């Protein structure tokens, strides 16, 4: 299969069996899942980034990324998502995976707001968000330092009409 074809997606909660595959993802200098400096993070710190909400994302059975969906407000149907695919994943994979994650996360619960945010230096993440039809809500400036310069993060969201 070439990387432009859409793979068969699957996922599972992170477990120790995924440890080596996940550490390999963090050898990529732009694997920005909960850190702006992935390849310089030590093993212990990477494992602390991976919590019980974190799932590994598999394309045709191979670990290619991570995601997490967290509730932001118990009674507001407001969730946030963090999504990262490895550098070799083409933009079509991001769109495809995101579409499947949306479908899965709205399958048995109401979602009114789904928020994502990407650092200003995260060109792949921003390109995905801007091509996914998400609403760009603004930039919170100067929240982090990356390669000697200060950057903000850009907030995106998709909002559905509440059912009730």
């Amino acid at each position: 299969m070439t990387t432009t074809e859409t793979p068969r997606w699957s996922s599972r909660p992170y477990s120790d069996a995924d440890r080596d595959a996940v550490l390999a993802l963090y050898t990529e200098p732009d694997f920005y899942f909960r850190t702006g400096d992935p390849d310089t993070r030590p093993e212990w710190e990477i494992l602390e980034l991976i919590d019980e909400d974190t799932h590994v994302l598999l394309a045709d059975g191979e670990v290619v990324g991570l995601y997490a969906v967290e509730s932001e407000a118990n009674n507001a149907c407001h969730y946030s998502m963090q999504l990262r695919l490895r550098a070799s994943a083409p933009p079509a994979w991001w769109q495809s995976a995101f579409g499947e994650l949306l479908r899965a996360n709205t399958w048995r619960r109401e979602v009114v707001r789904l928020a994502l945010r990407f650092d200003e230096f995260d060109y792949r993440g921003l390109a995905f968000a801007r091509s996914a039809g998400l609403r760009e809500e603004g930039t919170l400036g100067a929240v982090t330092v990356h390669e000697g310069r200060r950057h903000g993060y850009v907030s995106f969201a998709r909002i559905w009409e509440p059912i009730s």
Partner: protein
Amino acid sequence: MRLRGYRGSDADLLAGPWLPGELLGLPLADWPPLAAPTTVPPPADPGQELCIAPGLGFVRYTELDWVHRRARVEIGLHGVDGLDVLLKTVVAHGFLTLNLSRIHGWVTPLVDPPIGLLADVGFQREAVLPEATWLDGRPIDREIWGVVRND
């Protein structure tokens, strides 16, 4: 060169025949064979930043003060090739990746470190610490060398 994060498989790189805490810890040729090697603990908390210089050894930013953005750095190397590139990388990583504004370290003149290479990347001798450590049966002096961002 780019420093990378520590993995458990790098444990062998954390011990060697260099002075403890040395800014540029190079293997000492006359290290007694029965003397215990110097070791540093693997990174396990935010109080230190230990990275691996691929093929060379470790770089450890310790005594980290994230508020005032300064750290003491120590390096343990198993080889001596590419020191100039490594030192540039150490300073760049400290300033640009960790966003520190000051890095300093201990230099022991008796072991004849290549201080010219330190000076080339901006380090300056700041102080002499008389009888600050012990080597070969006697106390010896150490120096503090530091580099300040935007200096």
